[in-house]
C-alpha cells in the first residue's frame, strides 16, 4: 500500500544565516526576521503545516545551513488527496467517507486506529458538533500530542486560520518552541528601544569617538610636523622680485596715457598718467586672469569674466571689485627697477605713498 510523508511539526535550529531562501520557497511557513528565521504562528498548527509539506521539504533542501528540521508522519496515500484536503467534514461529503477506511499508519503511536466517533472524543482540541475529522488527521493529532506537542486541529475548516491565529495571543510559556523564540525576539527588539539601552550605546559610542579622536590627535601631533617638513621642497626657487625695466630716460619721454607692454612676461605694465610713472600688476584683481591692453578702447580687459580697467588701473566695468595693484619703483644709477615684493592698493589709499610712483 502506497504511503506518503506529511510534516506535522517544523522548527528551526541555531545557525540561521538569514538568507531568505526558506521564505522564498515557502513564504506561508517561514518568516525571515533581522537576525534569524522563525516559523509563522499559523504554521505551528499541524493542520496548516501538513498540506505544505512539499514547500517545507523544498525549503529545508534550499537551506544552506540545514537548520530547518521537521517531523514527518507516514500516512497511506490511497486516499490521495486526504493530506491536501485535511479537513473534510462528514456531512459535506458522506459518499467519500469509506466505511472501511484504512487506518493511517502512524510511526510513533501505538494506539490502534479508532472509529470516527472515538477520535472526536479522544482529542479535546477538536470542537464538538463541528463534524468529525478525518481519521488520518485524528491519528496525526494523537501522534503530535504523544510527543508532547501542542498542535491543535480543528474539524471546522473555516475556523482553522482563526484558531491558529489565536496562538498569537497566548503567553510566551504556553506557546510551542518556535513561537516562543519569536516572542523572545520581540522582547529583544523592544529592549533595544529601551532608553537605558540607548544611553548605554550612546555612552559607548561617545567613548569610542573620544578614544579615536585622541588617537588621531596624538598621531597628528607626533607625525604632522614631520609630514609638513617632508612636503616642503628642499629648495624654494623664486624669481627675483626686482625687475630691471630700462633707463629712466625712456620713461621720462613717455606720453601721458601711454602703456609699455614690453615687461608683461615679467608681470608688469609700465604706465604714465598725467604726471606720474607707475608699474601695474598684470594680475586681474577679480580672479587672477591676465587682462589684455586694448589700445582702441584704452582699457585693460580681462578675457575670463570681462573685468575692465582704465589705463591708470582703476576698475570701471565687469565684476572686479578693486583696481589693479601697483608695484614699488626704485631708480638706481639711472635704471628703473620694479620691486614686485611691495604692492600698493588704491582702495587702501596707498597710491599716494612715496615709492608707488616716479615723478615724470
Amino acid at each position: 500500500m502506497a504511503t506518503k510523508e506529511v510534516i506535522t511539526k517544523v522548527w528551526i535550529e541555531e545557525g540561521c544565516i538569514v538568507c531568505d531562501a526558506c521564505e522564498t520557497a515557502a513564504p506561508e511557513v517561514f518568516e525571515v526576521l533581522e537576525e534569524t528565521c522563525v516559523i509563522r504562528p499559523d504554521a505551528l498548527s499541524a493542520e496548516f503545516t501538513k498540506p505544505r509539506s512539499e514547500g517545507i521539504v523544498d525549503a529545508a533542501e534550499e537551506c544552506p545551513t540545514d537548520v530547518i528540521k521537521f517531523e514527518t508522519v507516514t500516512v497511506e496515500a490511497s486516499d490521495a488527496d486526504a493530506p491536501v484536503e485535511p479537513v473534510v467534514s462528514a456531512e459535506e461529503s458522506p459518499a467519500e467517507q469509506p466505511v472501511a477506511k484504512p487506518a493511517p499508519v502512524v510511526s510513533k503511536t501505538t494506539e490502534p486506529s479508532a472509529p470516527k466517533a472515538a477520535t472526536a472524543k479522544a482529542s479535546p482540541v477538536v470542537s464538538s458538533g463541528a463534524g468529525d475529522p478525518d481519521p488520518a488527521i485524528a491519528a496525526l493529532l494523537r501522534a503530535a500530542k504523544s510527543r508532547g506537542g501542542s498542535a491543535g486541529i480543528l474539524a471546522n475548516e473555516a475556523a482553522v486560520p482563526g484558531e491558529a491565529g489565536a496562538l498569537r495571543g497566548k503567553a510566551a510559556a504556553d506557546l510551542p518552541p518556535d513561537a516562543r523564540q519569536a516572542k523572545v525576539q520581540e522582547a529583544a527588539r523592544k529592549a533595544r528601544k529601551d532608553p537605558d539601552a540607548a544611553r548605554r550605546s550612546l555612552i559607548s559610542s561617545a567613548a569610542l569617538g573620544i578614544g579615536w579622536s585622541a588617537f588621531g590627535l596624538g598621531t597628528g601631533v607626533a607625525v604632522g610636523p614631520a609630514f609638513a617638513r617632508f612636503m616642503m621642497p628642499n629648495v624654494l626657487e623664486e624669481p627675483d622680485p626686482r625687475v630691471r625695466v630700462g633707463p629712466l630716460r625712456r620713461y621720462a619721454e613717455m606720453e601721458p596715457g601711454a602703456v609699455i607692454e614690453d615687461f608683461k612676461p615679467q608681470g608688469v605694465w609700465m604706465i604714465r598718467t598725467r604726471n606720474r610713472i607707475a608699474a601695474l600688476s598684470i594680475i586681474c584683481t577679480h580672479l587672477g586672469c591676465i587682462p589684455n591692453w586694448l589700445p582702441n578702447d584704452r582699457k585693460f580687459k580681462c578675457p575670463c569674466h570681462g573685468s575692465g580697467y582704465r589705463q591708470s588701473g582703476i576698475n570701471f566695468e565687469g565684476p572686479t571689485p578693486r583696481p589693479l595693484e601697483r608695484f614699488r619703483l626704485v631708480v638706481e644709477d639711472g635704471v628703473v627697477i620694479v620691486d614686485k615684493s611691495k604692492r600698493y592698493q588704491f582702495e587702501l589709499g596707498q597710491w599716494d605713498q612715496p615709492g608707488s610712483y616716479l615723478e615724470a
Partner: protein
Amino acid sequence: MPGVLAEGSGFDTIKHWVNVLCQPHWFMIIAVVLLIVFLVGYRKVTKPVIAGPLAAFATLAFLASCFDPNFILIVKKADNVPIVMMIVSMTFFIWLSFRQAAINDERMENGQPLLEAGADDKVLVWPDLVYIELIALVLFTAFLIVWAILLRAPLEQPADPNVAPNPAKAPWYFLGLQEMLVYFDPWLAGVVFPGLIVVGLIAIPYMDKNPRGNGYYTFKERPFAISTFMFGFVILWSVLIVFGTFLRGPNWNFFGPYEFWDHNQPAALLNREPRDLFWIEMLNRPIPGNYLLRELPGILLLGGYFILGPAVLYVLFFRKLCRQVGMLRYGMMAFLLLTMLLMPIKMVLRWSLNLHYVVAITEWFLNV
C-alpha cells in the same frame, strides 16, 4: 556669403533679429517666458502633434543657420559640439518626462491606473541590467571612437602664465559658474554659491517630505517642486552654459549667434554703485567717508531681502506649505529659494542698471 539660404536679404533681417533677441536680457526673458508657457500648458505642448513640428522646425532652423559662416564656426568647434548634443538630449528628456506626467495626470483625473502601475518594482541584475549595460557599453565605445576620429581634440600651444586665451572659457560644465562669476564676487560665486547649491540639493529630501511623485511621473501633484527645479536647472544652469558656449566672445562680451567675434568690438559697460545712485543721484549729497554708512542703503536692501523675503513669501504663497512642513523647514526652503533668486535679480540689475555690487565694502573684500 556662401549658401543659397544666406543670399536673400530676408534672411539677413531674420538673422539681425535673432542677434538682437540673443542679447542676454532678451534671451533670459524669452527663456523664462517659454519655460512658464511650457509648464502651464504642458499637457498640450507635449502632445506629439505639437512637439513634433516644433522639434522639426528647430532642427530646420539649426540646419539653415549652419550656412552662416559665423554660426558654423562656433557650432562646429570641437569643444562646442557636445553642447549642441546636450541641448538636443536635454530637450528630448524634458519633453519625455513631461509627456509621461501629462498622461499620468490625465489618467489620475479619470481614475485610470498610472503608466507605471504594472511595472515590477524588482528587476534582476542578471540578466536584465547587465545586458543593457553591456549593450550601452559597446554602443558608447563605438560612438566615442568615431567621435574621437572625426573631431580633433582641441589641443593648444603650451600654457603661458602671462597669456590668457581670449575668451578664456571654463570646461562646459563650469560655464554656469563662470557666468555667475561675472555678476558676483569670487568668494560668493566661486565658494558660497556652489557650496549652497550642493548643500541645498542634499537638503531637499529633508525639507521636502511629500511622498507624492515617488516612482511615477506627475506634474499636477508637485507643481511647485518641479517648477522650482526646472527654473534652477534650465534657466540658471543650462541657459548659462549656452550663454558661455555660444554667446560669450572675445573680452567676454556678448555676441549674437550670427555675429562675427570681433576682438576690437567696443562695449562700454560703465559700472554704477548703489552708493552713487543713492547718495549722489537721489540725495544729492557727498558720499560719506565711513564705509558702513556709505553702504547702508545696500546693506538695508540685502538685509530686507533675506529677512522680509521669507515673511512676504509666507503671506503670499506658502501659508499651507508652512503648516505642512513646519517653521524650520520652511525657513530653510525660503532661504535657499531667495538665494537662488538672487542670481537672476543681480543679472537683471547688471544688464539694466549696470549695477556693480549691491554692497561693496572693498575694504573688507565683502562685495555682494
